[in-house]
């Protein structure tokens, strides 16, 4: 396949148009899709795996799968949503592989408790709240983190999350609620101490 260089037609602005071109075999259209979405995909992969190397591997694998599976993408969902699902699935596999090697990844402990002696002024600060939420996310066990990241940040449906993580929808919901409870306890320490018995409710 000979692709003339230097005479590339301008790429459409719309992701959906790029997807249509890529489905017809336009390799450059697919490359443009990668260019426009890879930072976003990497961010999701990093939030899911919590590790830069793993995130890079996950993103690589995701785009290969997206490339091979593009014909099966029907366009009834957003391309990015479809890509998030693939990324979620690859990240889930990656974490499973890694958990076999590093058993600490399965550690269900709450992790270090955030220092409760916060300055009330700082507590009110939005940026501070954001960084505390991000810190708390990193402390979550990966399988709880995956569900809350996919549902509450990326707005995937329970059904999609369950399918990509290989769990039931009800398990996805249980994990979501556990993850939110742990996050709340971590982000707003010293209030509503009913989190202490969390370890009794193994999922």
């Amino acid at each position: 396949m000979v692709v003339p260089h230097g005479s590339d037609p301008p790429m459409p602005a719309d992701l959906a148009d790029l997807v249509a071109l890529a489905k017809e075999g336009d390799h450059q259209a697919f490359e443009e899709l990668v260019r426009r979405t890879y930072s976003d995909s990497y961010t999701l992969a990093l939030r899911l795996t919590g590790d830069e190397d793993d995130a890079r591997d996950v993103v690589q694998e995701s785009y290969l799968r997206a490339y091979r599976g593009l014909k099966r993408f029907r366009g009834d969902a957003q391309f990015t949503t479809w890509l998030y699902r693939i990324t979620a699935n690859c990240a889930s596999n990656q974490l499973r592989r890694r958990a076999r090697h590093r058993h600490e990844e399965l550690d269900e402990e709450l992790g270090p408790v955030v220092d409760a002696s916060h300055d009330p002024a700082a507590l009110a600060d939005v940026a501070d709240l954001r960084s505390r939420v991000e810190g708390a996310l990193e402390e979550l066990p990966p399988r709880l983190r995956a569900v809350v990241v996919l549902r509450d940040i990326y707005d995937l449906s329970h059904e999609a999350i369950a399918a990509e993580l290989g769990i039931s929808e009800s398990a996805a919901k249980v994990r979501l609620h556990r993850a939110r409870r742990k996050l709340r306890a971590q982000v707003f320490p010293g209030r509503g101490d009913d989190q202490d018995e969390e370890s009794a409710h193994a999922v």
Partner: protein
Amino acid sequence: MRCDDLGDVLAATADGSVSLDDAARRHVERCLRCQAELVQYRKLLRTLRTLRTEVLEPAPGLLAEILANVEAAGERHAVRSLLSGRRVAYLGGLAAATAAGAGAAIVIATRSKRARLPLAG
């Protein structure tokens, strides 16, 4: 009904997807602690949503790596199509692949070599 009975319920209802049943609502209406918890969940969910637009920049080189991998996969696919599913010896494959581009031929050659190494060793 006690606050402790409502832990999961509050976590579930904070996003508005589920509503409290009557007993829970009666409790929360009179309970400052549960109301404070709901407010915290709302703040938490709002903050999580703002993370959606945040981009964590990968270290340099990731884009180039992805594009190279996709390109290689595309070439492998193109060559396989050229071979039209027939089990051709790699030599024949190389000849056919030359028409599609020398790069693709090298990909196949190195891959097959790597795959055979463990058998030889």
